[in-house]
């Protein structure tokens, strides 16, 4: 069998410490390399404060979705309903905001809807014992989207209360000249990412989620309540989707019934590009964020270089395949070690 030079130098010869480092932070290096490349090609456009802030703002809702999807994928599951949850949350809170519901309540609508649909997903999976989360969440994908059209009559709703728009639109300049600054949505993503990292890595339930992804039978005989844990997992995913609906509603000052169609696939792609295993039990929060950034920077870089949107989709598809192939190579190198 022929060894590729990459696996040899990266994982065998330089010893376990380097390979461990690359395993955890290699994906961040990819992001940095992409940024350097774009900075070299179009420095004045790509590196402008406006553009960088835009990348962060535009990808904040995808980041929230991907973080939730990551928790599901760690259990070897999948949640197809997140795009519909996002749309339903967005439209429901826009309607409520327009109807004059007090804004603190409006802020709760998105996450509450997400928790509810997530709970239904989890219960359907564990109590009804539907054979695979694909089926259950495909069902709720359609139900939630149908509800979205039903309550909105298929028409966009615009004009939200300023407090509701805040999280999606505000940014903090920290003395920099506008439009430079840290978007509030980025801070929300950071808080969620750190909270999720702590939950997954430092709490017993987080570790149980990894154990379920690695070997559900082992988890069960270790006394872990697998069903209850899975319900929590899908509720987390739904919660994040509801939150991302709130973010998008704030950013666009409206509720679009079509918002988030197909975005569940982008979320899955970001998680996989970020190095999580589709078969469960493997991945990092940092990798997921890097996966989102890789997709975001790729799109942005192609945009500012006037590459057509059609090509963008082709390239993203190729990146997904390459990312998983790198993972396959890495796994093979690890076995040989």
């Amino acid at each position, binding site marked *: 069998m022929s060894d590729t030079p990459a696996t040899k130098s990266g994982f065998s010869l330089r010893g376990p410490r380097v390979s461990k480092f690359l395993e955890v932070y290699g994906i961040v290096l990819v992001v940095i390399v992409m940024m350097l490349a774009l900075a070299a090609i179009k420095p004045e456009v790509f590196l402008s404060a406006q553009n960088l802030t835009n990348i962060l703002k535009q990808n904040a809702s995808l980041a929230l979705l991907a973080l939730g999807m990551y928790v599901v994928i760690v259990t070897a599951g999948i949640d197809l309903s997140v795009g519909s949850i996002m749309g339903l949350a967005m439209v429901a809170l826009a309607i409520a905001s327009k109807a004059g519901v007090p804004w603190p309540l409006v802020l709760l609508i998105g996450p509450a809807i997400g928790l509810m649909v997530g709970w239904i997903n989890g219960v359907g999976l564990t109590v009804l014992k539907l054979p695979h989360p694909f089926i259950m969440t495909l069902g709720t994908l359609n139900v939630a989207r149908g509800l979205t059209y039903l309550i909105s009559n298929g028409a966009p709703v615009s004009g939200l209360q300023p407090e509701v728009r805040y999280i999606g639109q505000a940014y903090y300049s920290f003395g920099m000249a506008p439009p430079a600054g840290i978007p509030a949505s980025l801070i929300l993503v950071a808080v969620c990412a750190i909270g999720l990292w702590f939950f997954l890595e*430092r*709490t017993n339930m987080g570790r149980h989620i990894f154990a379920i992804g*690695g070997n559900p039978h082992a988890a069960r005989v270790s006394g872990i309540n697998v069903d209850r844990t899975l319900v929590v997992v899908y509720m987390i995913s739904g919660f994040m989707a509801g939150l991302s609906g709130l973010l998008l509603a704030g950013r666009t000052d409206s509720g679009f019934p079509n918002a988030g169609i197909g975005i569940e696939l982008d979320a899955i792609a970001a998680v996989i590009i970020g190095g999580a295993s589709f078969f469960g039990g493997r991945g990092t929060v940092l990798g997921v964020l890097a996966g989102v950034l890789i997709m975001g920077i790729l799109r942005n870089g192609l945009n500012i270089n006037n590459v057509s949107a059609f090509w963008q989709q082709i390239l993203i598809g190729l990146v997904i395949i390459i990312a998983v192939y790198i993972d396959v190579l890495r796994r093979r190198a690890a076995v040989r070690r």
Partner: protein
Amino acid sequence: MAGALLEARGISKYFGAITALRDVNFHVGPGEVVGVVGDNGAGKSTLMKILSGLFVPSEGELVFDGRPVSFRSPKDAQRLGIEMVHQDFALAGNMPIYENIYLGREPGWRLGPLTVVDHRRARRMAAEHLNRLKIHVKSIDQNTEDLSGGQRQAVAIARSTAFDAKLVIMDEPTAALAIKEVGKVLDLVRSLKEHGVAVIIISHRMDDIFYCCDRVMALYQGTNFAESPLGTTSRNEVIGWIMGTKGHTQGLAHDNMH
């Protein structure tokens, strides 16, 4: 049975129309190593799953340390110090050794419904525990999928004894191992006995039974068939029990050659 650590009286177990166990009695003393033999479908695994809380018996009662007990889940049995080592090891391969040892019982401090895991303490406890059992691994941070079969079995046994176990039930502990690793695992069973832990071993291998058991009992078609202290039986007699025959192999000359 006076002085028994765990006793099962008149246990029956039905799965629909199928009778897996019929009026089975069983006991194990403190620090005793009991071998359980029987053909496929004799009811060994069902009996062990009842003793470890995975199954609830249809009839009969369990007595632990002289008190009647009933287990609704393995957690209930674990609370009394009864642990099971599964045939497939039941380890999460994507997780390090030390996390597997404390899976479901992570050391740490309470935070509402969660426990914040103290990874440093778990590592230290795992290292000390493995040392005590004389189990050597490259690093407790190794994922268990990178271990050999024998090492995985050792980790599974370490997990079963990590919390003051009084009885460890092992389902075919050597069936999945390379020959050269079998001895190490059996020595581990002996060292559990030295630590005062009672062990029940299900095995098809007479070598396992005769290497580390004090007593052997046979199930046949879901019922008690025979039992004896190890010193007063022979391999051929026990093999006869597995096949449902008693007595008539006793006189054979090669019986006592082991």
